[in-house]
């Protein structure tokens, strides 16, 4: 597969993944462009890998983590979205979803990445572990902590369990 074919087929999915990892559309686009530019340089090697998509998604998650760390050292991580006005008519269900998204954005980056890869990308723990460069046990630990925070802060009863 050529680089152009890869971007043509998987580029949109990468940008969507980046939107969830960054919580910012512009940042998502910049991040994806940056990662793909790096992938372009090493494309022959990446294309020969068993799972080029896993490789590139790993680059994306790692690049976001690096950016997040840089940003965290300069400003409060929650300052931006806490002060933003809502997206408009946020009654009932919409307000509930908006609150859930804010909570997901407030999770530590590895926990958020696990939720995104599990619930959006629908990947199993072994593949998530490959992407994050950790063990499946660590993936489950991140997921458990993230879900526990969401239950606690979103008022979901603890009996309403999720995938561990």
């Amino acid at each position, binding site marked *: 597969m050529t680089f*152009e074919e890869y971007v043509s087929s998987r*580029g949109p999915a990468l940008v*969507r993944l980046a939107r969830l990892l960054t919580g910012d559309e512009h940042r998502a686009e910049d991040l994806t462009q940056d990662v793909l530019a790096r992938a*372009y340089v090493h494309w022959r090697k990446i294309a020969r890998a068993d799972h080029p998509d896993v490789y590139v998604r790993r680059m994306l998650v790692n690049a976001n983590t690096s950016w997040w760390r840089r940003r965290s050292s300069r*400003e409060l991580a929650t300052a931006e979205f806490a002060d933003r*006005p809502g997206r408009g008519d946020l009654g009932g269900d919409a307000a509930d*979803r908006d609150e859930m998204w804010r909570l997901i954005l407030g999770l530590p980056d590895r926990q958020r990445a696990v939720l995104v890869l599990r*619930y*959006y990308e629908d990947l199993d723990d072994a593949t998530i572990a490959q992407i994050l460069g950790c063990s499946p046990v660590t993936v489950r630990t991140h997921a458990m902590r993230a879900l526990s925070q969401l*239950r606690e802060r979103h008022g979901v009863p603890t009996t309403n369990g999720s995938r561990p």
Partner: protein
Amino acid sequence: MTNLDERIARVLREQADGPVDTDSLLTAAVHGGRTRRRRRRAAIGAGLGVAMLLGAGVALRTPSAAPPQPAVTPSLVVVTPPRAPGIPGAAASPALVGSDPQLLHFGVDPSAAKPVAWRSAARVESMRLDLGGGVQALVIVAADPRTAETGDPSQLFDIGPDNAYAADSEKDLASPGPGVDAASRYNGVIRQLDRVAKGWVLRWQPVPGLYVRVATLGETSADIQRAAAALRFDEARHCVAPIRLTALPPGARISACEVAVRQLFWPRIVNVAGTTTPTQMPVTDSDHTEAALTVALQGAATLPVRLFYSPRPSSPDRSKANREIAGRPVFDMGDFWHVLGIPNTLLSMGHENRWERSPTDAEVSTVIGGLRVADDLGEPASWK
């Protein structure tokens, strides 16, 4: 899945959803990659040069810099979506907007502006206009103000609510917040875009119930008035594209049509050390043509068919077909299919939304069997 699992999955889908400008992404990625490669080679060359100066005494061949990229010559041929006789425009009935993805319920005075991109999808229609002299305008039309603000994510990258949340009342706040009547903002007042240097936005209702949002860049707001005056809401036009789907699987329909015949890049917001800085960048032409027809399949699945054409020769090491579908050579990736054999063109279709089911082989075969590509992709007049 538990209730919490479902809520998380739903929120993530909503936040991730929205079209992606693959053309810009590919162009930026290739440009960035080439720049990185040049720097790498230059660094290696410099390192080797130092080694030679130090008397390494080895015959070296310094890697040359990558050849300069050919200048992009914008296509001078501009197609205007052809009129759809007998179909009323949005002014006659605002509810028509976004009701048929193969139609646009508004048009443009060709002597005042040239459409370079257009899109028709559920409840929203949009265009990018070339006003001449490197000035472009974005136009979003909908039958309700919320959709006009949020219904076209590809345009919202540039002028959407995420670009407008300053507390400064002089600046544009696209999202008025809870309790504020969004329709009241469509009052014909020109505002300055927040976070986009020298950007302007105008909202108005040409007729009650029709919400139009236009944005331009410039020292003054003169261009936005020019763009607004060029729009015609008493006519309808076909969403003409260089691809046609003459056969669809049972129960399927085309849900969106999107074409860019000459992308005019909008200035980008640049992040510096994690902060966002308004940045003015030149408007640059590109000669790519990009089109996408989205097929909504039975059972909440979609099959976007995307075409990317560039008159420049494409990479020679293109993948070989691994099967044939409906007489066309295809590279089958399992849930993504590249239709090969069309010069200078990437034509792909496939599974993009992971929460949806993957299209079946029969569905893909039907769509590829009915696929018609314009004879000359570089000649938009031949698409009609």
